[in-house]
């Protein structure tokens, strides 16, 4: 049995580069998904929520809550200025599934240093978890480097997407009549419903497969 410092001993530079390259290539599909979905989420927040600093809130909320469904679901209650406990309930209901992701990572992340562990837990989103769970590196230090770099890249894609979406709509609002934007983006709010429908269809498929 190796002790902690040996388990996470640094990799050779060449190996390190290989792991980072692998993580980047694996993150490319997430890049497509996160930036496009994040852009729509940020645009919705800026267009529908009536906030003074939509870009700031897009940046902050995407960095704090790396959860696509929550980012979409929070728009309508924010526009209605629902009380804060509504959002706690919403997050609890939507993100309950994340509690199950951690269980499979317990053994693997057992001795990871605290700060890095906190970050890994923060980034335990659907796409990130799927890639981390499928990671082939058996050596703990390579595995940890893979998970950390993947998490950092995916976080940056998500934050960049949401912020860019919110910023783009804010710029447009400065240049155009807000009622005109409201009229042009009329119907865009269906993106949120469509996302929920897609998730629900996936879950129904899953249940139909395993239920019998």
């Amino acid at each position, binding site marked *: 049995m190796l002790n902690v410092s040996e388990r996470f001993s640094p990799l050779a530079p060449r190996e390190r580069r290989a792991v980072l390259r692998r993580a980047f290539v694996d993150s490319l599909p997430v890049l497509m998904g996160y930036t496009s979905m994040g852009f729509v989420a940020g645009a919705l927040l800026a267009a529908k929520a009536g906030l003074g600093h939509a870009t700031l809130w897009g940046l902050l909320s995407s960095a704090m809550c790396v959860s696509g469904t*929550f980012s979409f679901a929070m728009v*309508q209650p924010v526009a209605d200025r629902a009380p804060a*406990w509504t959002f706690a309930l919403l997050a609890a209901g939507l993100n309950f599934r994340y509690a199950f992701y951690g269980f499979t990572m317990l053994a693997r992340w057992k001795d990871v240093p605290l700060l890095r562990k906190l970050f890994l837990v923060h980034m335990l989103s659907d796409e990130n978890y799927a890639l981390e769970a499928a990671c082939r590196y058996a050596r703990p230090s390579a595995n940890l480097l893979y998970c950390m770099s993947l998490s950092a890249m995916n976080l940056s894609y998500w934050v960049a997407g949401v912020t860019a979406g919110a910023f783009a709509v804010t710029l447009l609002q400065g240049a155009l009549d807000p009622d005109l934007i409201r009229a042009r983006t009329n119907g865009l709010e269906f993106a949120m419903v469509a996302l929920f429908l897609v998730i629900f269809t996936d879950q129904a498929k899953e249940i139909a497969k395993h239920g019998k």
Partner: protein
Amino acid sequence: MENEFLYMLAVVGAGWAVTYAMRALPFLLFAGRGRELPAWVTRFGSFISPVVIASLIVYSYSGLQWRTPWPYLAGALTVALHLWKGNPLVSISAGVALYMALVSCCGCASTHHDRELVYDAAHPLIHFTNKGMKFRDRYVTPEEAVRLLKKHKVPKDATIHMLVDEDFSSPRATWVFQHNYLGKAGYRKAIVVHARHASSSAPKRRDDRRNPPRR
């Protein structure tokens, strides 16, 4: 605006705290031990998520034009495409495109743009609350409020009544709005109306807002 700032800080904080707690739960429960979950927990977990998503679908339909058939048509297209192709991006964008097309060509007219604007002491256009600024019944940014005034052709010499809630905690915000936004746009006459003074005449009940008294 600092009230909106505090409100959004609470929103983001609540979302973050709960999301993080959910993700950290197994690490807190079984610190260090790799243990199998009881079967009922996994079953409960796989059951709760679809229920939440289904209720969210119902809730978010209330924000669409749910009295027309269009959101249901677009929803059917989304689900059908997803069952067929299984590509979320394709099904979502097709559903959104169909819904936007249907709503823009044959949707019902959106309700709050076309009504005649009533503005007097009993019907203040601007309303300051601790959760942000309202223009009539909608939360807006200060820029939006000024643009809406111009759009509705409110004359520059009209008196703009700014209703302030009794518990409003940032009187400076009304001053900033009056000078930096209304004043710069040419609206020189603005009056702050306090809710406790206006309570006898301000519209409180829904019916009053729908049927404003004739002038």
